[in-house]
Every structure is written in structure tokens, then in C-alpha cells.
């Protein structure tokens, strides 16, 4: 099921959105700062806002085609929508919330018991929706959207209203939805860690324009423009294997190298993870540099490429796996970095972020 937007335009006096994009299967993170147009775009897709121009198609269904005067009402789109505040119906029980959008017999419908099991809300069915905690509300809202037999899920910052601990508790459920129901999802967020933890692709939105769209690791490692780099930050994201986990300190196999990371929240039986290292957190020293340092990770590396980005230099390294470092011009000049030169890489254990897959 492909969601395709062509020449979609929406404007107010102060803001304009102009989008051409195709979103395929899997989870796409719609990333941008507040005011970049993420929610507006999602509302256009859901049918809550009508664009002044453009076409929106989902699979072979035309949702919007302004040239032909087509604009399906939201109820005819079969697009599940979960807003930031969950928007549960407070006068109904959890079960009646879930069944509100039920389409018995519709293709792509999921059974109540199945949805409840995946989201762990089976015990809440009889409760009033008004009495749930923040995390429960979000899970019920997700379940309610799934129950309406959607062909696409739009999640508009579903974790933004939760504190850090609750966020970490909900993320596994989102991953289960992704893996269990195999629906295309657009996941709006301004938190890179959520995108990395959940999404296959990322679409970077800035001032109503799509700046870059591609696989998450690709976009984080090689932002297409300095603007994108400023918005997403530069990060290396790589698959890794946990080889040991003792006292919250994890040893990871990444490429042909080994890294130590702080991972106090990692479940004991986890094997496959993602690691992310922000480019600003990577320290470079001369190859013959001091060996006694507090940084847990010291690796020998070879410089692959050097790129200028404003006042900073973007150094692409090979240290058993590809790694990007951002340095100031002066530092790069003092180290005399050039492709092919050896260098030593230091990364502190807390800067190696471990993300369950």
C-alpha cells in the first residue's frame, strides 16, 4: 500500500506547505521541529484539512484530487489517526471506545482480543476511558485506530505527552504493532531517538517542505544539506549484537569492532540492537596518542572522507564499521586529517546509545 502525495499545497498567511512524496510499506518517521508542518500534513492525509491543490492517493484509492474536485470525507478513507492527546471518548468505556470504529467483516479488520493482547489492555475493557493513566490512554487510542480496519496508520506524536519512563514503556508496543499488523505507518515526531527506535525511513520536514527522505541510518549519517544536518543532527546508526550485559554495561559487536555502552534499561535476553553515536560525541586523537583515558571505547580508524559544513568538518571514518565525526575546522586542521590517514577514535560508553530493535 503506497501513500502518494503530488503537488499538495496548503497555505495560511504565515505558513505554506508544499509536498511531493511517496511513502511505502513499513514505518516512516515524519520528522521536524514544531511548526514545520508535520501535523498539517497528517491532517490533510486523514481528511481533516482540505489542501488547496494536489492529489493524495492510498493504494489505488484517490483520497484527494483537487483538479477533479475529489475529497473523500475522513470516514471513507480508512486511515487510522492517533493524535498526541489520544482523544479517547471520555463518556464511553474502553471497550466502547475500541468498538466505535469497528467494521465487522471489513477486509483488514483485526479481532478485539488480538488487538487487546498485542497492546496489553485486555484488563481495561470495562473501565471508563476518562479514568485511564497517560500510557494506558495512548495504548487504547492505538488499539481503537487498529480496530477500524485501517489501511494506513497516522500517529501524530503519540508519545509527546508522556514522561521519559512512560515513553520507554510504550515504544515496545509500537514496535509490536509494526511487526504484528504490518500496516504502513506515518510516525510524526520531533524526537530522533523515537524515529531511530521505530522507523525504517525518515522524511525530514522543514518550513512546509520535504528536505530529505530515505532510510533512517542513511539520513542521519549523511544529511543531504546543512539544514537537514541542523534539524536531525548527525548520527551513525548501526546494527549490533549484544555479547555481554553485566551491571548495565553492555559489550556490543559492531562490524568487526567491539564497543562498550551504558544500557541500564536493556532487557537481559536482548541480542540484536541498534547503536547510535552522535557525530559530535566522537573524539579524534593522533594515532600515537595517549592510551590512558576515561573513555571506554578506543578504536583505530582510517579517515575515508573529509567534508566541509560551515564552521565544522564532517569526517567519515572506518574503524571496523563506518562512523561519522563532526569536528571544528581548527581541530581538523591541527590533526591534519585527510583521506587515508590513520587516527584514533574515543567514544565514552554513555555516548554509545543502545536501542532495542
Amino acid at each position, binding site marked *: 500500500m503506497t501513500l502518494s502525495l503530488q503537488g499538495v499545497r496548503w497555505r495560511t498567511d504565515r505558513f505554506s506547505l508544499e509536498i511531493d512524496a511517496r511513502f511505502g510499506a513499513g514505518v516512516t518517521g515524519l520528522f521536524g521541529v514544531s511548526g514545520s508542518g508535520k501535523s498539517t500534513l497528517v491532517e490533510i492525509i486523514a481528511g481533516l484539512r482540505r489542501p488547496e491543490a494536489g492529489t493524495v492517493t492510498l493504494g489505488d484509492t484517490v483520497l484527494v484530487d483537487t483538479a477533479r474536485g475529489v475529497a473523500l470525507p*475522513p470516514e471513507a478513507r480508512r486511515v487510522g*489517526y492517533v493524535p498526541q*492527546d489520544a*482523544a479517547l471518548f471520555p*463518556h464511553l468505556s474502553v471497550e466502547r471506545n475500541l468498538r466505535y*470504529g469497528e467494521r465487522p467483516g471489513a477486509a483488514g479488520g483485526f479481532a478485539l482480543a488480538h488487538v487487546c493482547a498485542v497492546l496489553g489492555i485486555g484488563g481495561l475493557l470495562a473501565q471508563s476511558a476518562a479514568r485511564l493513566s497517560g500510557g494506558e490512554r495512548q495504548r487504547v487510542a492505538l488499539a481503537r485506530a487498529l480496530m477500524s480496519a485501517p489501511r494506513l496508520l497516522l500517529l501524530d506524536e503519540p508519545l509527546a505527552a508522556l514522561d521519559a519512563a512512560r515513553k520507554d514503556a510504550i515504544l515496545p508496543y509500537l514496535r509490536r504493532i509494526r511487526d504484528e499488523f504490518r500496516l504502513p505507518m506515518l510516525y510524526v515526531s520531533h524526537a530522533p531517538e523515537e524515529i531511530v527506535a521505530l522507523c525504517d525511513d525518515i522524511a525530514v520536514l522543514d518550513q512546509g517542505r520535504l528536505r530529505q527522505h530515505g532510510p533512517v541510518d542513511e539520513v542521519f549519517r549523511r544529511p543531504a544539506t546543512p539544514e537537514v544536518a541542523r534539524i536531525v543532527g548527525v548520527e551513525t546508526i548501526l546494527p549490533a549484537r549484544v555479547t555481554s550485559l553485566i551491571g548495565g554495561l553492555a559489550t556490543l559487536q559492531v562490524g568487526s569492532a567491539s564497543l562498550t555502552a551504558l544500557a541500564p534499561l536493556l532487557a537481559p535476553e536482548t541480542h540484536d540492537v541498534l547503536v547510535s553515536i552522535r557525530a559530535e560525541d566522537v573524539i579524534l586523537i593522533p594515532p600515537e596518542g595517549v592510551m590512558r583515558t576515561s573513555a571506554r571505547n578506543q578504536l583505530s580508524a582510517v579517515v575515508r572522507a573529509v567534508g566541509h559544513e560551515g564552521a565544522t568538518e564532517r569526517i567519515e571514518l572506518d574503524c571496523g564499521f563506518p562512523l561519522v565525526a563532526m569536528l571544528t575546522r581548527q581541530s581538523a586542521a591541527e590533526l591534519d586529517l585527510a583521506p587515508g590517514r590513520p587516527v584514533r577514535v574515543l567514544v565514552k560508553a554513555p555516548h554509545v546509545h543502545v536501542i532495542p530493535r
Partner: protein
Amino acid sequence: MDDVLRITLFTLGVAALSTLLILPFGVGLGWLLARRAWPGKAIVETLVALPLVIPPVATGLVLLKLFGRRGPLGHFFERTLGLEIVFTWKAVVLATAVMSVPLLVRSARVAFEEVPVRLEQVARTLGAGPWRAFFTISLPLARRGLLAGGVLAFARALGEFGATVMVAGMIPGETVTLSLGIYQNVQLGRDDAALGLLAISVTLAFGAVAASEWLLRRKTP
């Protein structure tokens, strides 16, 4: 039947009927004012609020001119339905309805404005058409404010005088309500009878306002 009892029942009946008649209109208009932008909205808003601010007697005069036998609406009703309105009990219902509709529309508008738009939008994405979203989400969530508005309109209808006397006259046994009865009795020097009707009026109004307060304060289940 006892005159006092008959007047009381007539007044209650008129107020109930006029409230029932304006309920669908007032609730619908309240929702449109709260949720939609449409051309002429400001004019409709002003027109609906007008009976609150102009003297009731003036409103009554407008109704008399519109619904009298030679008035455009009166002529229409008489020709098509054979209905004679002015100086009958129907005119009492008409006057009380027009005088109490602003209170209902205002309450309904506020009640709907307090329902988050998001909930209606999510209901739509879950497959509910606009009517289903209205009846299953907006209406139940606004119900306390709507009930309170209805009670307020009912109380206003109980006490209406100026517009009623213009358009329905003061015909004993036909158009005399509690308010009109009080005035008539005082005019005729029957102060005791007037005070009796006054006591009933005050009791009814008190009951209506208390009911409205109770509905507003009641916790959502």
C-alpha cells in the same frame, strides 16, 4: 376547574411546548455557531440575540405584524394550514419560544465549544459520518450544558410577559398565563389573587433554576 390551577397548568404547558419546539433548532444552531464558519453567521448571531436586548413589547409588536392576519407569515399560515395564530394560545407559545430561544442557543453554543473538536475528528476517521459523530460524541458530551440551557429557556418561557401580551392579548381562559394573570388581577384590584399567582411563579422559577444548577454541577458519570 379551579382558575388558579388552570392558569398554572396552562403556563407550564405553554413553556414546555415552546421549549420542545425550539430545542432542535436551538441545539442545531448552537452547534453550527460553535463549529462552522458560514456566510451570514454574524447576522444570524445578532438576530438570535436580538430578543435579549430589545424590549419584549417591541419583539411582541414585530411578531404581531408578522403573524397577524395581514402579516406575511400570518397570511401564509391561515391560507395553507387554516391556522389562526394571534390572540390564541398558539400566539402565547410563539411569543415565549421567540423570547427564550436566545438563551438556549447561547447555552448550546458554549456547551458545544467545550467539546474538543479533536474528538469529533477522531470519530470521523473511525468511520462515523457527520450525523453519527454528532449524535454519539458531540451531543452526549455537551448534554449537561444543553440540559441547563433547556431549563433556562423553560424558566424564561414561564415568566414571559411583554411579547405575549402584545401578540396574544389577555383573554381569560385562552391566553392568560401566570405573568399575565398577576398583571390582570392587580389591574382589577384583586391583590390577593395576584399574590397567590406570584407565589406559584416564584416556586416554579425557583425549581427550574435549581434544576439547571443541579444539572450543571452534577459530575460526569
